[in-house]
């Protein structure tokens, strides 16, 4: 198998949907490439090869997981950890984000969905990404960490300053992101300081739990706890928002699919898997440990390799009608959440957020549609709608028709 050399800027903004098409073309043109853009990086485009890359930690390390940033200025835990520490870190956190833990918060999540819908419904329309799309994931993560909801606005404000990727090639965007990251770290440093002197219930408060949990033969250091909190915030907010946007976009622009979901809410679970597959929002990356010929690519130590989930998920060698959104597709073994031991910790929470959102939204505002005739725009790299205007008809009682 050979590779191609390309020069493409995958982070360029563009028309909504265009990034997926561009990636599909790239994949069909070559099974692997060296992208000369920026510092350069490798990428495999086929599902099987991407999964193999995910399952090769001895060759491809997590020292950096941002493809444009081989030497990250800060450490994310557990994302940048390798074996054996990685699983030890995960073991301090897994139970807090496991399906049973998420299920405990389901009543709150459902109430929160309805509270947010209550605020929007009478307006007859909204810009989804900056309203529901931003607030719901934030309230959910705050709840999962056992923090009071009064903390949500400050987290929303700080994370809102990180636009695009922290590996953004624009110097201003990087400076803004760095400032926002400092602010978030400062926020959690204050929280850790407070919980050290006044611990809350370690069964309910995530930071208090981290302060006393056993880690190998010791406890976690403050820096490790901060790195964990940063990772949760970076991993759990804009991602869910972005994916939610695509779900709502698809159903707003595909009335037949929307009606199927309204008629049979049990379809929502399958539809969400298909949206995760066909509208893949993120990739991750790995760093080459030492020179290796990997799937025909002569990779050199220190080079970055894109884990091209956005391509793998739409690979026609694995998925029939791969470029079509088939909302009852089954089985659907996509790798939106990765395919390694680093599988997204928040995957169960993300699914619950998406399911509850689609259930409640379609129950209460079934007839929404796009609220603009303008072409929608999306960011590249982290592929997300910039805005999603929605509109619906409100009756005399303030309910949606």
């Amino acid at each position: 198998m050979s590779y191609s050399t390309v020069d493409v800027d995958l982070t360029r903004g563009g028309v909504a949907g265009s990034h997926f098409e561009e990636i599909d073309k790239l994949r069909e043109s070559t099974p692997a490439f060296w992208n000369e853009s920026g510092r350069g990086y490798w990428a495999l485009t086929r599902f099987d090869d991407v999964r193999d890359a995910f399952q090769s930690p001895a060759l491809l390390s997590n020292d950096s997981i941002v493809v444009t940033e081989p030497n990250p200025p800060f450490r994310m835990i557990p994302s940048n950890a390798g074996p054996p520490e990685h699983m030890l870190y995960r073991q301090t956190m897994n139970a807090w984000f496991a399906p049973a833990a998420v299920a405990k918060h389901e009543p709150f999540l459902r109430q929160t969905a309805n509270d947010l819908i209550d605020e929007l419904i009478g307006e007859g329309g909204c810009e989804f990404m900056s309203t529901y799309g931003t607030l719901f994931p934030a309230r959910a993560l705050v709840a999962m960490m056992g923090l009071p909801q009064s903390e949500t606005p400050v987290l929303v404000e700080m994370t809102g300053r990180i636009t695009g990727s922290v590996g953004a090639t624009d110097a201003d965007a990087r400076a803004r992101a760095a400032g926002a990251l400092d602010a978030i770290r400062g926020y959690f440093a204050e929280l850790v300081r407070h919980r050290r002197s006044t611990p809350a219930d370690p069964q309910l408060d995530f930071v208090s739990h981290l302060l006393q949990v056993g880690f190998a033969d010791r406890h976690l250091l403050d820096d490790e706890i901060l790195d964990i909190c940063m990772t949760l915030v970076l991993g759990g907010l804009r991602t869910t928002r972005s994916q939610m946007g695509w779900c709502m976009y698809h159903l707003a622009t595909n009335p037949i699919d929307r009606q199927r979901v309204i008629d049979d809410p049990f379809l929502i679970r399958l539809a969400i898997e298909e949206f995760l597959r066909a509208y893949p929002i993120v990739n991750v990356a790995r760093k080459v440990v030492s020179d290796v010929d990997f799937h025909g690519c002569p990779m050199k130590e220190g080079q970055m390799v894109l884990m091209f989930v956005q391509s793998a998920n739409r690979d026609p060698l694995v998925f029939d009608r791969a470029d079509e959104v088939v909302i009852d597709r089954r089985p659907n073994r996509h790798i939106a959440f990765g395919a390694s031991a680093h599988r997204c910790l928040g995957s169960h929470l993300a699914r619950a957020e998406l399911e509850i959102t689609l259930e409640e939204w379609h129950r209460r505002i079934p007839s929404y549609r796009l609220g603009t005739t303008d072409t929608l725009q999306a960011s590249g790299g982290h592929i997300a709608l910039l805005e999603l205007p929605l509109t619906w008809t409100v009756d005399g009682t303030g309910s949606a028709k």
Partner: protein
Amino acid sequence: MRVHVDDKLCTGQGRCFVEAPDVYSSDEDGYCKERHAEFSVPDELAEQARRGAEWCPQAAITCTDGE
């Protein structure tokens, strides 16, 4: 049917126990509880067992007919 869930491949994607709940279950960390030892399922659960295997993104599950 014999079912083998490879504990070196299971990453807690959580599709098996959601799509085939009579065969697979979640442990408290969100991983497949059945990954510790091979097991058998009766004929009436064979379809679910295979469904769980097909859904696993890690290809961690193997189902073998006949035992």
